């Protein structure tokens, strides 16, 4: 088991774990976490397979750095949207049923 394979296999399991969580978790913030785990898994696969005996391949490293930055940008957008959705839900619930009654979906 070469070092590269150990990390690449971890990446594969992480991708599967994240995918399973994305499917089964119902809350959007948790799904955002799950997507980040899938991304991290794929990055580890790329990095692991680029780890030769003597040196580490700079190409997967560059791709992964770009991937991490884009993942953070989209996580920020995802988090902002989730909070905005919650605010809209609270606003519509207050508007439709100010006296309590059946809570919104």
């Amino acid at each position, binding site marked *: 088991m070469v*070092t590269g*394979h*150990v*990390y*690449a*296999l*971890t990446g*594969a*399991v*992480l*991708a599967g*774990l*994240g*995918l*399973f*969580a994305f*499917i*089964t*978790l*119902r*809350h959007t*913030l*948790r799904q955002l*976490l799950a997507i980040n*785990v899938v991304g*991290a898994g794929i*990055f*580890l*696969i790329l*990095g*692991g*397979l*680029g*780890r*030769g005996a003597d*040196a580490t*391949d*700079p*190409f997967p*490293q*560059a791709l*992964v*750095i*770009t991937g*991490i*930055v*884009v993942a*953070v*940008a*989209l996580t*920020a*957008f995802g*988090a*902002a949207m*989730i*909070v*905005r959705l*919650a605010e809209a839900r*609270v*606003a519509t619930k207050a508007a439709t049923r100010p006296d309590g009654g059946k809570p919104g979906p």
Partner: protein
Amino acid sequence: MTGAFDIILCLMILGAAGIALFVRDALAAIAFFIAFGNLLGLAWLGLDAVNVALAEIALGAGVTGVLLILARARLLALGDDATCADTSAWLRAGALAACAGFVLLLAAAVLSIPPESGLDRAVAPLMPGLGIENRVTGVLLAFRAYDTLLESFVLLGALVAVWSLAPAGVWPGRPADLGVADVPMRRVARSFGRFLLPVALVMAAYLVWAGSDVPGGAFQAGTVLAGGLMVSAIGGAIGLPRSDLPGLRVALVLGPLVFLLIGLAGMGFGGFLVYPEGSAKAAILAIEYSLFLSIGATLALLVAGPNVIGWPDPAGGTDRHSDC
């Protein structure tokens, strides 16, 4: 000996990820996710990919952690404690089978590819032409400069997208005040902000300068700067700027714009993003120094989130929460 380190680290990464995903309490999930990000940074150190480790520790554990903590707090204030409703057993069983199959296929594919540093040999002879030694920076800013250019626009695009989520009529307001309400905490955070911002600036400048020869670079530096800006905002040392401040807009666009202009200037030397012979290092440093300022400002504002506090428009009172 190194085998033991890698295997234990990988097991801990899987454990931290599993707990981060399936623990009930939202804050525990985020705390484990931050630990997961830190452990990933160690995985990249284990792979001797220090450039990526810097990015993972700074971005993965730092910025994403802060982002999720603030998002959870905002959801909590809206009465949503981000715990999951249980899904049906059928869905769970089906998803488990599908994902297990997916992992097995992926693992088989991964094991069939022998890890070797393939393109390292292709990149090595081209490095002296650039005048820099860090091959990852060489790939990022010279051989694959196109990807990095697009990436800097993606970051800007994400900020525009987050700003577009502001309630109608709040433009051009400010993001929610990040300040701490509790006075003793505000003082501690403010003094930490006053310490961290200059240190973050020096650290970021060092990372960009060193980035051409040793691991570092504009994105890692930008993240350190964003961390300093965030803490100063939380401590009240600096206020969050209005979105339409000209100075802010220049800072946000500076990096991508300089990158694009240098790329267009390359047309005279043979093609888009081709650096003139012999002055590649100067071009790369010019790009990186303008880029890290934009990235720092953009990441800090991405964490601050959409505008909430409207600006008293002299024409008509823009109330803060007009129903959208």
